[in-house]
């Protein structure tokens, strides 16, 4: 039995402006207080057209957690790394993920960086990363993410091998799929939060899974354990209809059929581990928001330990770690 230790993050929401909040993310009862507080601090980052952005204290805590954990095998980020898919937001996200550390977990610019952890980083985009504009209507299907993160994600809106780990004699593969909406499928009322399991991307995901298994088997006569990574949480009970992953039962059915028993995701800003409704053999590990400003349940990252043996994940142990300052009101 080999334990693969993964730091799983989701929904970081980096942006050109930190701590900006959209008024729709503040409960009406707290709106006046929030605005007065910001006027007193002479900050005006309460907006009506722009999405809520990120909490820098949480971002730094994440870098510290990664830096201090010497047992990590991988840092896995399941989407919404930026607030929008515009260049100005993505470059901030990119600095967090790729900047060279100068002191401890800080870059030369004193910005936290995951590179300080000296652990491989795997990631895929979420719906925010595909927003074409910084303000409403956002538009989906943006491609700037692929430009900025081409060393980590180079397949566009498709499926890709995020990472393959070998430790002792065991292997584990993380295969990811981007189910964000394509530009053609836009409905202005639904575009911001939904995903869709399209037939061709699911096909790619399954083919890739098969190929990974065959490649390792042929070369090392070992079968790798496999987990899938997506941004949207499939079959997440109680989710707002504008945030759902359409066609999610098909994804779950495919996972069960391909003996992929674990799916990692994010999107909901709520940490939850649950069995899929339509296939109880599939467990979904949904991370909470990692560094969203005013996250409703606070920001959290999770250490996920995969106990793998002979190509099967025997057990998964998750340990949440709260990061950043506690918050008390709602954000989407």
């Amino acid at each position: 039995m080999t334990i693969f230790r993964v730091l799983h993050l989701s929904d970081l929401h980096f942006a050109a402006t930190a701590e900006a909040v959209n008024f729709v993310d503040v409960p009406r009862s707290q709106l006046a207080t929030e605005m007065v507080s910001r006027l007193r601090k002479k900050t005006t980052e309460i907006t009506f057209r722009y999405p809520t952005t990120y909490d820098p204290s949480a971002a730094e805590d994440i870098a510290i957690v990664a830096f201090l954990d010497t047992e990590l095998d991988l840092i896995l980020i399941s989407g919404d790394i930026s607030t929008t898919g515009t260049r100005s937001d993505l470059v901030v996200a990119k600095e967090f993920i790729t900047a060279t550390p100068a002191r401890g977990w800080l870059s030369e610019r004193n910005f936290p960086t995951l590179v300080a952890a000296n652990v491989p980083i795997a990631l895929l985009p979420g719906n925010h990363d595909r927003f074409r504009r910084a303000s409403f209507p956002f538009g989906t299907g943006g491609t700037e993410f692929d430009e900025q993160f081409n060393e980590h994600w180079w397949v566009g809106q498709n499926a890709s091998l995020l990472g393959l780990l070998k430790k002792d004699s065991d292997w584990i593969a993380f295969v990811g799929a981007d189910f964000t909406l394509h530009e053609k499928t836009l409905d202005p009322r639904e575009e911001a939060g939904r995903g869709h399991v399209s037939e061709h991307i699911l096909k790619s995901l399954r083919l890739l899974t098969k190929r990974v298994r065959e490649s390792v088997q042929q070369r090392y006569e070992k079968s790798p354990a496999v987990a899938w990574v997506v941004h949207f949480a499939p079959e997440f009970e109680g989710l707002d209809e504008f945030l759902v992953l359409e066609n999610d039962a098909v994804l779950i059915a495919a996972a069960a059929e391909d003996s992929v028993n674990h799916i990692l995701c994010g999107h909901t800003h709520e940490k939850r581990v649950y069995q899929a409704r339509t296939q109880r053999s599939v467990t979904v590990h949904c991370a909470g928001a990692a560094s969203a400003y005013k996250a409703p349940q606070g920001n959290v990252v999770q250490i996920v330990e995969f106990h793998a043996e002979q190509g099967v994940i025997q057990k998964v142990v998750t340990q949440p770690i709260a990061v950043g300052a506690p918050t008390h009101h709602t954000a989407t």
Partner: protein
Amino acid sequence: MPSRKRRITRSTRSQLTSRLPRSIREKPSMDDEDVVVEIPSMASDYRSPKFVPSAALASRLQVAAVTKTIFTETPEQDPRVFSDLNTLRNIIGETLEAVLFVESMHALATDETRLTVAEASGRFADTFAAALAHRLTLRPYDAPSFLDALYAELHVALKEPLRYSWGRIERRAGVIGLSIEPLPQRLERTSSKSTFYRDLRMI
């Protein structure tokens, strides 16, 4: 660090007294056998040139300052005498981390490597020290998470990450202290290292 002793007016005293638990208000015992706990005074301003706390940290400092006020501006007497160890323990239990952290930060910001958490004497002194020790984990990085984030923030502000760790709790002649110790540059990995591939052609 010198103790702060302030004159307390009648109105201030009344306000402070009303914030205290009933058991304390009603037990101003001066028995020499009771435990005497004196918390060192808090520096009036932590905004030293080396360390400017963030807004999040400042709000926590404020909490700690209130705590400190309760400890130091005791209406009954100064230094404070507690005859009820449980009450003392409860107060400490709720606020110890905040007080400790403020003191630690000040010590770090002023390049001290040792700080006095409290001075205790009397028959409960050992029990008090033991309770204090129990609330703090001594291994580096295992301090309560409440402390870790702030502690890290301090190091970021000082631009000297990980130079110190929470050290040992010291008990000498009724003095309960917390030492701050240098850390190794990096903890060593204890498990075997994995190999990472992003491309199947590389395996």
